[in-house]
C-alpha cells in the first residue's frame, strides 16, 4: 500500500511490453515501413535545421539574432501545443480512463495517484514534441559545432519546459471539471480544440508571413520582424528555454533563465499536486454522473434521407453513420484542425498577391493552378485519413450487428464509400474552384483541375475505404486509426497517387500552355498527347478506386475465417 508511485505505471509498461512481444504476420513489414518513415522524417528535420543554421552563420550578429528569434518561436509554438495537448490528455488520464475505477477503489493515496497520472500525462502529451525537437536541436548544435555542454543544456531545458505547460494544462482541466455543469468533460475538449484552431489561424494572420514576398518595400520587412518579436515576451517559458539554449550554443550557461524554468516547473507541479489532492476526487465523482445528455434527434435529417432514392439498407446505414458522427463531439473535434487547414489554405491564396511579385508572369500563375491541385490532393488525403479510413473501425464492438444481418459486406463497404465521397468531393471541389478564382487562372485549367478533383476524390476515398476495411481497429479509439499502420500506408499511397496524377495532367498541359503563350499553333500531336495522358490519369484513378474497394470487401469477407 505504500509502494512508490511508479508502481501505478506498471500496467501500462507491461501492456506495452506485451504488445511488443506479440508477434503477428506483417510485423516486419510494419517495422520496416514505420522505421524508414521515422528515419526519413528525422533526417529531413535534422537536415533542414542544420542547413538553416549554417546559412544564418553567414549573417554574423544578425544571424544570431534570427536564430534566437527562431528558437523562441519554436518553443512558443510547442508551448501552445503542449498546453492544448495536456488539457486533452489530463482529462483522459485524471478523469475518464477506465483503469481509474480500479485505482480510485484501491487504497492509493491521492498524492501517489497524482504523481502517477501526472507522469503519464507528461509522457503522452510531450513525446511528440521531444521527438520533433531532438533532431532540430542536434541539427543546430552540429551546424554551430557546439560543445557537449549545449546537449546537456538541451536535455536540462526540455524537462522543465515540458513540465510547465503540462502542469498548467492539468490545473486547467481540474478547475474546469469542478466548475462546469454536466457533460463538461466533452465540452472542455470542444473548447480547447476551438481555442487551438483559432489560435493557429490568428497567429498566422498576426505575423503575416506574406510580407516577406514584398521585397520592394524593405521597411515592411523591418515591421515584419518587429511583429515576430512582439508576442515573444520575456515572461514566457518559451523565451527562457530559447535563451538557455542559445547560451549553451555559445559555450556558456544562462543561470537566470534556466533557474526561472526549473523553479517555475517545480512550483507549478507542487501547486497542481496540492490542488489535485484537494479537488480531484470531487471532479472525478462528478465525471461519473450518468451521461444523460442533451442531444439532437435530427428529425429533419431523417426526413431528408428518406427522400433520397436509395435502398432501405443503405438509407439506414447512412442515417446511422450521420447521426453517430454528429452526436460524437470527439469526431466533430477532428473537424477543427481541418477547419484551420481550410482557412489557412484559402487565406494563403487570398494574400498571395502575385501582381506585386515582379517575376510572376501569367504562365507562372497558371502553373500555380497545379500547386493548388496538389494542395487540394493533400487536403483530400488528410480528410480521407481522418474521416473515411476509420469508417469501418468506427463500427467497433457493434460490428457483429452488420455481420449477422442479411446484408453483404460489399453493400456495407460501398455504403461507407458513398457516405465518405460526398463531403470529400464537395469540400475539395469548392476549395479548388475558390482558390483558382482567387488566382485568376486560365479557363481551360479551371475545367481540367475541377475534373481532376472528381477523379482524385473517387480514387482517394476508395483507397481510404478499402484500406480501412483491410486494417480495421475495432477495439481501439477510431480517432486514432489515422496513426495506425493502415493509416500511414494510406497516406504514403495517397501522396504517391497525387504526385503521379499531377505529373500526368501537368506535363501535357504545360506544353499546351507554353505554345499558347508563345502564340504557336497547337499541333494534333499535342492534342493526342493531352488525351493519352489525361486518359492515363483517369484510368489510374478508376483502377485505384475499384481495386481498393474490391480488396476491402474481400478482407471483410475473410474476417469470419
Amino acid at each position: 500500500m505504500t509502494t512508490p508511485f511508479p508502481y501505478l505505471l506498471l500496467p501500462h509498461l507491461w501492456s506495452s511490453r506485451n504488445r511488443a512481444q506479440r508477434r503477428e504476420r506483417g510485423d516486419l513489414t510494419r517495422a520496416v515501413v514505420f522505421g524508414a518513415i521515422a528515419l526519413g522524417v528525422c533526417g529531413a528535420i535534422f537536415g533542414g535545421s542544420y542547413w538553416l543554421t549554417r546559412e544564418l552563420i553567414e549573417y554574423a550578429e544578425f544571424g544570431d539574432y534570427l536564430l534566437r528569434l527562431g528558437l523562441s518561436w519554436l518553443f512558443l509554438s510547442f508551448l501552445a501545443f503542449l498546453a492544448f495537448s495536456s488539457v486533452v490528455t489530463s482529462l483522459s488520464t485524471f478523469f475518464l480512463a477506465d483503469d481509474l475505477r480500479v485505482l480510485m477503489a484501491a487504497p492509493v493515496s491521492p498524492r501517489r495517484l497524482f504523481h502517477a497520472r501526472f507522469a503519464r500525462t507528461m509522457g503522452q502529451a510531450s513525446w511528440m514534441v521531444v521527438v520533433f525537437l531532438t533532431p532540430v536541436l542536434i541539427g543546430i548544435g552540429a551546424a554551430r559545432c557546439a560543445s557537449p555542454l549545449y546537449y546537456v543544456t538541451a536535455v536540462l531545458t526540455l524537462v522543465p519546459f515540458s513540465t510547465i505547460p503540462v502542469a498548467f494544462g492539468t490545473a486547467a482541466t481540474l478547475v474546469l471539471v469542478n466548475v462546469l455543469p454536466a457533460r463538461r468533460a466533452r465540452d472542455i475538449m470542444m473548447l480547447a480544440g476551438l481555442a487551438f484552431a483559432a489560435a493557429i489561424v490568428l497567429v498566422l494572420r498576426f505575423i503575416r508571413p506574406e510580407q516577406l514576398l514584398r521585397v520592394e518595400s524593405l521597411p515592411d520587412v523591418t515591421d515584419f520582424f518587429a511583429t515576430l518579436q512582439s508576442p515573444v515576451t520575456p515572461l514566457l517559458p518559451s523565451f527562457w528555454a530559447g535563451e538557455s539554449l542559445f547560451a549553451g550554443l555559445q559555450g556558456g550557461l544562462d543561470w537566470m533563465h534556466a533557474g526561472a524554468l526549473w523553479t517555475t516547473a517545480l512550483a507549478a507541479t507542487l501547486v497542481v499536486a496540492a490542488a489535485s489532492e484537494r479537488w480531484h476526487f470531487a471532479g472525478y465523482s462528478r465525471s461519473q454522473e450518468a451521461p444523460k445528455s442533451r442531444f439532437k434527434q435530427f428529425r429533419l435529417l431523417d426526413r431528408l434521407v428518406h427522400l433520397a432514392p436509395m435502398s432501405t439498407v443503405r438509407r439506414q446505414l447512412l442515417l446511422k453513420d450521420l447521426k453517430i458522427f454528429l452526436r460524437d463531439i470527439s469526431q466533430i473535434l477532428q473537424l477543427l484542425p481541418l477547419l484551420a487547414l481550410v482557412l489557412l489554405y484559402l487565406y494563403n491564396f487570398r494574400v498571395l498577391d502575385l501582381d506585386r511579385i515582379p517575376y510572376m508572369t501569367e504562365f507562372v500563375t497558371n502553373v500555380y493552378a497545379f500547386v493548388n491541385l496538389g494542395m487540394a490532393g493533400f487536403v483530400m488525403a488528410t480528410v480521407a485519413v481522418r474521416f473515411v479510413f476509420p469508417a469501418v473501425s468506427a463500427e467497433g464492438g457493434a460490428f457483429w450487428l452488420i455481420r449477422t444481418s442479411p446484408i453483404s459486406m460489399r453493400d456495407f463497404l460501398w455504403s461507407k464509400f458513398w457516405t465518405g465521397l460526398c463531403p470529400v468531393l464537395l469540400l475539395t471541389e469548392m476549395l479548388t474552384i475558390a482558390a483558382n478564382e482567387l488566382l485568376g487562372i486560365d479557363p481551360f485549367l479551371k475545367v481540367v483541375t475541377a475534373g481532376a478533383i472528381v477523379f482524385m476524390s473517387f480514387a482517394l476515398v476508395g483507397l481510404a475505404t478499402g484500406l480501412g476495411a483491410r486494417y480495421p481497429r475495432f477495439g481501439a479509439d477510431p480517432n486514432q486509426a489515422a496513426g495506425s499502420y493502415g493509416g500511414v500506408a494510406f497516406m504514403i499511397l495517397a501522396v504517391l497517387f497525387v504526385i503521379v496524377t499531377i505529373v500526368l495532367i501537368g506535363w501535357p498541359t504545360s506544353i499546351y500552355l507554353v505554345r499558347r503563350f508563345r502564340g504557336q499553333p497547337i499541333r494534333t500531336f499535342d492534342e493526342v498527347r493531352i488525351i493519352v495522358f489525361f486518359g492515363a490519369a483517369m484510368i489510374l484513378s478508376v483502377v485505384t478506386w475499384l481495386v481498393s474497394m474490391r480488396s476491402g470487401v474481400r478482407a471483410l469477407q475473410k474476417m469470419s475465417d
Partner: protein
Amino acid sequence: MIVVDTVVKRYGSFTAVDGVSLDVRPGEIHGFLGPNGAGKTTTLRMIAGLLKPTSGRIEVNGHDLVKDAEAAKASLGFIPDRPFIYEKLTAGEFLRFHGGLYGIDGDGIQSRVQEMLDLFELRRWENELVESFSHGMKQRLVMSAAFLHRPPAVAVDEPMVGLDPRGARLIKDVFRRMAGHGVGILMSTHTLEVAQELCHRISIINRGQIIAQGTVDDVRKMAGGEDEHLTPVFLKLTGGSGLQEIDEVV
C-alpha cells in the same frame, strides 16, 4: 429451424469445436450447456455467421449458411453475450436501423418498434441515447432487435447475464411465448436452473464435443443419477464438483 451437422472449428492446431451436431426444432427451446471454454460461444458465433466453420454444415430455416448466407441470416435473430451497440443512437433509432438491415422500412417499422419496446419494457427510453442505458437495458434492447424482424429461429448466448430478477423473468416469459408461436430458440447458458425450467431439450458440450443430448430426463439418465436438480448431473458429466478442492483451499 437450426441444423448443425458435424461442425468443426480449428484455430491452428487447437480444435475449439470438434464435430458438433445438433438441431433445434420449430417451437423448441434448446439449451446449450457446458463449462467455460467448452466451445459454446464459438458454436453460436458460427451459427450467427460471425465465424466460418473449418468443416461441417449449418442450416437456418433450410438455408445453408455458406451457400445462402443472406437468406440464412435473414431467418435468424442473434443475441450475443455482450451487448455492444451504437452508443450514440437512441433506442428507437437503433431498432429502426436494425429493421432497415433486414429490409423493414416505411410505415410498418414504427409500429413494430413500439411493439418490441413495449414487450421488453423499454418504451419510456425510446428517445434516450443507448450510452445512458444500464447493462440490463442494453441486453433487453439487443433482444428487442433480435425478435424485431420476426425470425423463425433465434440463437442466444448467455441471456440472463446482467439482468435483474424482473428482467430475467420477463425474458423467460418472452422466450416461452416466442417458442409457443413456433420460434426455435438455441440458448447457451451457465444458469442450470434456467435450462431446467425453460428448455425442451439440452445439449452439453465439453472440450468442443457434445457429450450428452436429449431432454433433461434423458440427460439425467445418461449421467446415471437420480438427482432432481441439473447441477450435480452437469458436474458429473463435465468432470467433478470441485468441492473437495475448495475445502482444501479454504
